[in-house]
């Protein structure tokens, strides 16, 4: 049983530097991650750089956890990109904009591998 969080996503400067270089290791290291408050990290029993599985009603991904004091307890922040968006519904409620922020999610410690960009995109095919 994981911890319930409110998932949001957004830009980071390293993500921005790699906007035109999304197949790079630097982009992977920066974007395939989830920032959590220390209290939530302790609750999950994960240390920094350990993997967590983030699940919503629309998908699940494995990413590296990172402790961030600026992220409040109960909030999970993922840099915008393919890993965060794998968890987002395409439904815009007739308004044209998907709900990229404020998604009910569940996080648990995971021993699974973090999928690389190419591997993640492969999951959409077939």
């Amino acid at each position, binding site marked *: 049983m994981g911890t319930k969080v*409110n998932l*949001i996503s*957004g*830009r*980071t*400067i390293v993500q*921005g*530097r*790699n*906007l*035109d*270089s*999304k*197949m*790079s290791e630097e982009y992977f290291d920066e974007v395939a991650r989830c920032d959590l408050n220390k209290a939530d990290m302790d609750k999950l029993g994960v240390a920094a750089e350990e993997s967590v599985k983030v699940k919503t009603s*629309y*998908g699940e991904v494995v990413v590296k956890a990172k402790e*961030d*004091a*600026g*992220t*409040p307890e109960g*909030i999970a*922040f993922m840099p*915008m*990109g*393919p890993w965060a*968006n*794998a*968890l*987002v*519904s*395409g*439904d*815009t*409620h*007739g*308004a*044209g*904009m*998907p*709900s*990229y*922020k*404020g998604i009910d999610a569940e996080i648990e410690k995971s021993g699974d591998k973090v999928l690389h*960009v*190419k591997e*993640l*995109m*492969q999951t*959409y*095919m077939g």
Partner: protein
Amino acid sequence: MVEVTDVVCSLCGCVCDDIVVEVEDNKVTKVKRGACSVGKSKLMGHNRIKSPAIRVNGELKDCSYDEAIKKAAEILAASRRPLLYGWSSTVCEADKVGVELAEEIGAVIDNTASVCHGPSVLAIQDVGLPSCTLGEVKNRADLIIYWGANPAEAHANHMKRYSYVSKGFWTEEGKKAKKLVIVDVRATKTSRMADVFLQIEQGKDYLVFSALRAMLYGHEDVVPDEVGGVSKTDLLETAEMMKAAKFGATFFGMGVTHTGARHNNIVNAIQMTRAAHTHTKFSITPMRGHYNVAGINQVCTWETGFPFAIDLTRGYAWYNPGELSATDLLIRQECDAALVIASDPGAHFPGESIKHLAKIPVIQIDPFPNPTTEFADVVFPVAVSGVEAEGNVYRMDNIPIRLRKLIDSEYPEDEEILKRILDEVRAIKEKEGN
């Protein structure tokens, strides 16, 4: 070595135009000053798509531009419901050809606004936008509010060039004589600079806008002790700062466009700005992301009457975000082919929408390989606008600026590829007698 001054950055909506670079042997070798680290990264360059390619048995196989043009035109001519998407990281000249292509083939044309400031566009159509240029903000504003935005990471030069840190005609003391208010869910690099940081509960922006509106209209008695995680005391302090400002400027980001109330958040933000007008001068501006997302909104508007999510299949322009936005079309599995240019839906669309995009024929026009390339069926490498090609773009405050060409490219420009696809589509249609 040649030093080039007044270089214009083609990365984010700030479109900084005071960059100095060094060029040697047809390469940008150094960014000397003016650019933030994100812009510098763009100017110095990245790995490129090397050759046009067509997917055969699951693998992209290099081909000639002629072969790729022919294949792309065949896909678009045969499509019953094509989607032409992106357009924000290229120049207006290419965007104009894109609208012509959409009209010719009867397509839905949408741009990246639909996943960033689309809700802002809807709100502006609803209640207008009391805004001003970034130059006005630089020269006049003594109170800056960033709401649901983290410019220190997302628009790294914005504060330095245009707002809190900049020095202007009537703001010659810079930040010493200015106040900074940050409203955000997370404490960020930006919030650490703030005079007042309102850390709000996620999704409660609408309530906090309403509380400040009430206070600005003199009705603080109706505001409870806490609104959206913010104390009434902090809200009153912010309202007093707004009233006392000579000129206030609010900038808002995707913290407000991406959450529950969507465009209603922005309507309320604009109404809060109006409430501030009962005391002083105040403006509000969306923090546009791509360097020319404002420009594709301009081009679509002057060509079709509407800024995004436009259906041109009926013989006249039909606008309905929520039905015709790219993500909506894709989750309904409505489009049967797509052309993606100057954007990366593979990285930035919801997974649910990508599933359909990965199934249909996709034509990609882009200088750089990205997640969209992984499922694209026809790929065109192109010149990088602002480095290898010139053209007009619109800054986030809708000021047109011309990008400069710094070096020659071995690749064609976006506009040329689009024109060639358009010509080929017309030739196919003529042959078929349509």
